[in-house]
């Protein structure tokens, strides 16, 4: 299987070489024509199909970033597993964080079909070369954050990911179908946590409001920069990877949470928030994109902590993985 992947990865590199010499080979021209036809038909590209190098790179980056986000995203929630205030909540939270590990695994598998092995993707994460969703660099300070993360962060993730179920790259789209089903469950459990708190004691209600206040703006920023400032979006849309612009998705999300926050009996920390009938758009406050950039580039409250924890787990597990590999080699030798 791994060998197979390597071969796939090698093929486009040859193509690229041909491109540099400015004379595309016949195979490359035929591949491009086939690719263009599939995209024009709005159909699926599969791992063995020829694809432009840029398409492969974009997808590898996007899918692996998504996988990293699932893995790093386990940490803020794992922070409350041991302190969950009821056994039922503890069970639900454990199941949720475990699902995220599962999402990470199938996304890494989807990324591997593009030719980059999981170990290499993991190295990119641990060395800080790869990005992941910046929202996970905010701390989960209270139990109510388990609610706000579920409702707002997973809610924004769903709005982002539902259209990805129809992404032109087959393995990604199929992985997203399963991920979205589970995310939908996650969002509901987050909402239930907040609902319970909002109907609880004054202290609990305050805890819930405080968590919503802290996660509102970062969750809106999860859709990425405004369309005018998102250079890669257009190409991704042309390739049928992305189906809606960042701003479109943000609009949908705001429309959704505006209604849901009423059920909670809480408020969104945005005095400017209103629906503009004329443009048919939600107007929300100016988001702090300087903070967004700072967090993405490593200055968020928990960037260092999150990566250090991942590295520590990886390094502490090295002897275990070595032992498993040695055992597997012994078994293979016995069979041979």
């Amino acid at each position, binding site marked *: 299987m791994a060998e197979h992947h390597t071969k796939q990865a090698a093929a486009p590199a040859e193509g690229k070489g041909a491109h540099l010499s400015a004379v595309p080979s016949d195979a490359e021209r035929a591949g491009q024509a086939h690719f263009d036809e599939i995209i024009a038909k709005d159909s699926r590209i599969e791992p063995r199909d020829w694809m432009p190098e840029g398409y492969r790179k974009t997808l590898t980056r996007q899918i692996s970033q998504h996988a990293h986000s699932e*893995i790093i995203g386990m940490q803020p929630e794992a922070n409350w597993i041991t302190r969950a205030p*009821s056994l039922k909540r503890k069970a639900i939270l454990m199941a949720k964080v475990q699902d995220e590990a599962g999402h990470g695994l199938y996304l890494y598998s989807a990324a591997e079909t593009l030719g980059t092995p999981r170990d290499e993707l993991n190295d990119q994460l641990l060395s800080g070369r790869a990005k992941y969703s910046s929202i996970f660099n905010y701390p989960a300070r209270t139990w109510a954050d388990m609610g706000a993360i579920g409702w707002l962060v997973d809610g924004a993730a769903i709005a982002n990911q539902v259209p990805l179920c129809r992404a032109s790259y087959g393995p990604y789209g199929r992985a997203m179908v399963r991920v979205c089903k589970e995310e939908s469950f996650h969002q509901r459990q987050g909402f239930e946590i907040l609902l319970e708190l909002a109907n609880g004691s004054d202290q609990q209600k305050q805890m819930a409001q405080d968590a919503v206040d802290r996660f509102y703006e970062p969750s809106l920023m999860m859709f990425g920069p405004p369309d005018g400032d998102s250079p890669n979006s257009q190409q991704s849309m042309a390739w049928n990877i992305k189906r809606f612009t960042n701003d479109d998705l943000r609009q949908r999300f705001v429309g959704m949470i505006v209604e849901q926050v009423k059920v909670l009996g809480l408020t969104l920390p945005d005095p400017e928030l209103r629906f503009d009938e004329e443009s048919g758009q939600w107007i929300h406050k100016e988001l702090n994109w300087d903070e967004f950039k700072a967090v993405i580039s490593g200055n968020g409250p928990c960037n260092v902590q999150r990566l250090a924890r991942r590295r520590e787990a990886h390094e502490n597990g090295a*002897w275990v993985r070595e032992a498993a590999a040695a055992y597997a080699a012994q078994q293979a030798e016995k069979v041979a």
Partner: protein
Amino acid sequence: MSSSNTHITEGIEDDFASFGDVTASATRVTPGNALRPEDIAVAGEGPASDAVAEYALQLGDDALILAQRLSWWISRAPEIEEDVALGNIALDQLGHARSFLIYAGKRLGKTEDELAYWREEEEFRSAHLVEQPNGDFAVTIVRQLLVAVYQNLLYTELTKSSDQTIAAVCAKAVKEVDYHRDHAIQWTLRLGRGTEESARRMRVALADLWPYVGELFADEQLHDDVGDAGVHPSTLRSAWDEEISAVLADAGLEVPQVPDAMSRGRHGEHSEHLGYLLAEMQVLARKHPGATW
């Protein structure tokens, strides 16, 4: 090569509609028809005697403390696959704990959460073995091996318990514990046979945990009092020894020759570790007396 589904964006609006419905229940869904903790809370009688309630508490506390220990690994395991596996095992143990505690609580007049969050350390009935810190992965695996083989034998016997609820909980639990046992055995073989370093760590873990094995098999007055509802644990020891010796032999490891530690967890005399574990587990619930979550 590509699938023939042209226009894959058709119906995308329906997709949005079907996800993100936060008003549907997230928690009242359970796979299959297995006995859930919530079912025990609403249906059937409580334990017939105080002794049976105490016995259920003991079973529940072992599972609860082990679940709490194992859950720490989620996001810290050597491989993401192990985050999933250890998380799964922790979740199973927590499910068993909830069932036993809910059942015990029906006689004691307490909810599962009152029992988990509001008892004092000396009111817990867990064995010292499950209280032991996670240590490195070898310690966790050895603890898993020792406990899972014990629980597998115990729950198998308890499926014949004269107490129908205990029998039903164990009938479900034994299938899950059988997987925990297999997981621990597979890792014991890999770590025992893998590298010099992994074998060394396994030997250390075995020697450090073995002293707490004896407590699991010590007969108490309680076992006489519960009669056919329970099992005298001493009757499980030889089967346990046999299975553990065979696994360790396969793994190239030896049964440690170390004496039992004096452990009286069943009487509320716990290891020093339990206090910290409970402090962490109970802190939030205790900050908000009377709150629901």
